């Protein structure tokens, strides 16, 4: 063990990162596993979505087989949200790559996070993200965040509107209080598709202490 080294001399043993290097090169998003445990939540279809709208979206947006299954709610077309849980139990949720919105997207974001504008004329493109009034009006301040909005897993946090007229509701996924909502999405809705990493929807501080209770509405992998 060497005594304090002068600045120039710090050298790193990179051999211990060899496996990490190859895994992450293939899937850069994996680095998040260092900071969070990964879970998923299936948001149920927005009650507002009328039968007629569903049909219209099916023809306008070729989701492939996913669309056909959407109506009967089978696993493949569930509106999956990711729920990343930090060791301090805070849960970050957003639209997962398994969500119908992202399923047909090529994983362009794996190597570059340059915020290129995707083709906004495509009907699948996100036109706007509208946060629920209760969320926009919520007060989040102080260490205890005592005045914050209480949420249930199914509480609607925001609605994502596509150019084609579809709506997808993103929900809280866990029971607790809202500690942050990503206002950036209102100004730059295209981030949902182009930069899923920057496009988290909300952060919730769970009411329960116990992992099983916190994640009661979530699953560990998309079925």
């Amino acid at each position, binding site marked *: 063990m060497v*005594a304090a080294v002068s*600045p120039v001399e710090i050298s*790193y043993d990179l051999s211990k990162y060899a496996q*990490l290097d190859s895994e992450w090169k293939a899937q850069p998003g994996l*680095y998040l596993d260092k*900071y969070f445990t990964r879970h998923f939540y299936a948001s149920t279809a927005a009650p507002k979505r009328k039968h007629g709208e569903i049909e219209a979206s099916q023809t306008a947006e070729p989701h492939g087989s996913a669309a056909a299954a959407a109506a009967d709610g089978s696993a493949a077309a569930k509106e999956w949200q990711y729920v990343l849980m930090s060791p301090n139990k805070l849960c970050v949720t957003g639209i997962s790559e398994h969500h119908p919105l992202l399923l047909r997207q090529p994983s362009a974001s794996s190597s570059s996070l340059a915020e290129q504008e995707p083709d906004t004329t495509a009907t699948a493109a996100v036109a706007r993200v509208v946060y629920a009034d209760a969320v926009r009006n919520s007060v989040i301040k102080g260490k205890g965040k005592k005045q914050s909005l209480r949420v249930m897993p199914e509480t609607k946090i925001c609605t994502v509107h596509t150019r084609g007229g579809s709506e997808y509701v993103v929900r809280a996924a866990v029971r607790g209080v809202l500690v942050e909502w990503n206002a950036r999405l209102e100004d730059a809705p295209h981030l949902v598709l182009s930069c899923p990493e920057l496009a988290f929807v909300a952060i919730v501080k769970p009411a329960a202490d116990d992992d099983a209770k916190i994640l009661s509405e979530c699953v560990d992998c998309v079925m």
Partner: protein
Amino acid sequence: MQTFDSPNVSVGIELPKSIYIRHRSVAIAGKKQEMPLAASSVPEIKDVVRYLILHRLSVMCGIKADPNSDTRIDVVFSHEETSQEHQLLFPDQGAPAKQPKHRRGKTVVAQPAGKSLSVVLAELGQRSDDWFTENFACPPSAISSQAKIESLSFKRASLFVGGRYLKLERNISQTPFIVEGRRMTETSVAEVIGEPLQRLVCCDEYNLVGSGREDADVRMLGDGRPFYIECMNPRIKAIAQEQIHDIEASLVSSNSPVQVRRLQIIRPDDTSIIKEGEENKSKKYCALVWLSKQLTQEKLDEINSLGQNGILLQQKTPVRVLHRRAPLTRPKKLLSLAISHIEGNFYKVRIESEAGAYIKEFVHGDLGRTSPSLTELTGHTADILELDVEGVSLDFPPVPEIPTTQVA
């Protein structure tokens, strides 16, 4: 060894409450009988008892009385026989409804039940001599038992030892890190330095306060981080600088992952420098960073030239501390940034930043909540693999006279 090496002592006395009742009773009796025992000339029993105790201590241990002594003995007397006499002042009150509690730091402490001395004295002051005579014998009745000493407590002002610590290995927290009864790290900086210190000064507890702190997985290199350790209730304060220096030397020779420099006894007033430094002084870091794609030379140069002029960050409270800190966006300045290629996707990043900047979050961007971030600046996913603090720019404590360990 439990003996205090104090040259002087002060004594605090707590007498049974009945003393004050009886004192009043004697004063009234004296007035009535026109004895030359005016209330003001009746000596305070407390002072007499205090004098007697101090005198005895002086004879037995050669210790001098000094009201400003750093050592205090609190003597509490009780007298079973007259323990309820003061209740006469509170004729209509039943048992106290609830035990009042008060909070000390995080622990909730129950107040002793019953009337406090100040309440008794206040009530006593309200009662006229006539009322008193009606309700209590003046002069007071004789007693048949002696008062006894119920408790003795010894308290000494803390000893403060300051220095700079180095953490040469990872997974060592600054102070013991215990979650749900389990230790999260094998040891801590506080324990490595505090244990030998505790053996030297025989204190009850020790508490380390650093000028800021680094995560358990981050090393503290260079000249170390300023800190002080408060040693509570030390028995020995007459410590020579050589003895303190021995602690420093033994940590070096045993290749301890935690070492100290400039270790010395400091004055209590000096401790405020530590906290001021935490907020105002800049820090230097070196990090191992992984990027999802290698940078072109142009990009590298671009970032380095940007970094030379300093970068202003807007940092939202990191997710990893958001559960216990207020949600705010804090502007933090990176005074300089330099990135160099090591090999493949690995880069070395050197940063000098304002106090309070979250470096890890600057690298990966904390899901876009720290901006700009290295992820943003490079346009590729960036993550930090290792972090070292190379310098904390607060100059404390002064270099002591005995030469400290030279860096190899």
